[in-house]
């Protein structure tokens, strides 16, 4: 039994749905960020799988590199926002932060 493109796609589908579940249900803002990282990783697996099994040479890997770059930038900015929220509201639960000004 050989490993085909579908195997990698199924792994990425499972990873995507787990990340989606974390984003939708967890109260802690940092857990939401972890869910976003899982989603980005599943997208990267798809890019690399299509890059290897399709005839795309290096193109999929280039897309994956830029996804990793954007993930790093996103994590830094999001953590700064979360720290600001904690300074102001003394909580990082996303369901308690429901107004724009105090």
């Amino acid at each position: 039994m050989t490993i085909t493109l579908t195997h990698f796609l199924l792994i990425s589908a499972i990873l995507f749905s787990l990340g989606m579940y974390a984003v939708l249900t967890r109260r802690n803002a940092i857990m939401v960020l972890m869910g976003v990282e899982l989603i980005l990783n599943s997208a990267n697996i798809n890019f690399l799988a299509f890059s290897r099994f399709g005839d795309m040479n290096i193109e999929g890997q280039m897309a994956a590199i830029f996804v990793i770059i954007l993930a790093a930038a996103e994590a830094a900015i999001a953590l700064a926002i979360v720290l600001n929220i904690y300074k102001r509201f003394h909580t990082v639960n996303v369901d308690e932060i429901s107004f724009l000004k105090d």
Partner: protein
Amino acid sequence: MYEIIFYFFAFVTVASAAVVVFSRNIIYSAFALLFTFFGVAGLYVLLNADFLAITQLMVYVGGILVLLLFGVMLTTNTVSVDIKSGSLNVFPAVTVVAAIVGLLTGVFWTSEWFMSSTMGELTSQTTSKEIGNALITTHVLPFEIASVILLVAIVGAAMMARRERVK
């Protein structure tokens, strides 16, 4: 042998991702995320992407995970040992996620994917030379834009996270 390695990394990835999502303790989630990133890096190696695997380990494990752990420790009262985090909207979320995973697996199973002439066989040559060439020839514009984005993100994050406001 290839199959065994694939299933091992797939199991590590999926199991630790499940721990990340379903664990009540956010510290456990952060450490399970470490194993998820390792498993995904292993899958990258199986996909002929050795450079991406190393980049994944350096950026995600060395950077993003440490950043997330700092975020956990800075935003929880370790004195009151209240680092549990609850869930909300469980029923709608389960519905939406079940619909998404059903749709995705259905599409992935039933589609006739284009297969390359080499059938995606493993190569032993490294990809870093090709990636380096592509970064300074065909992909030079996204490369430069990415460097500007990283600079803006660093300055913006440091600006937002500093303690006192500039009047």
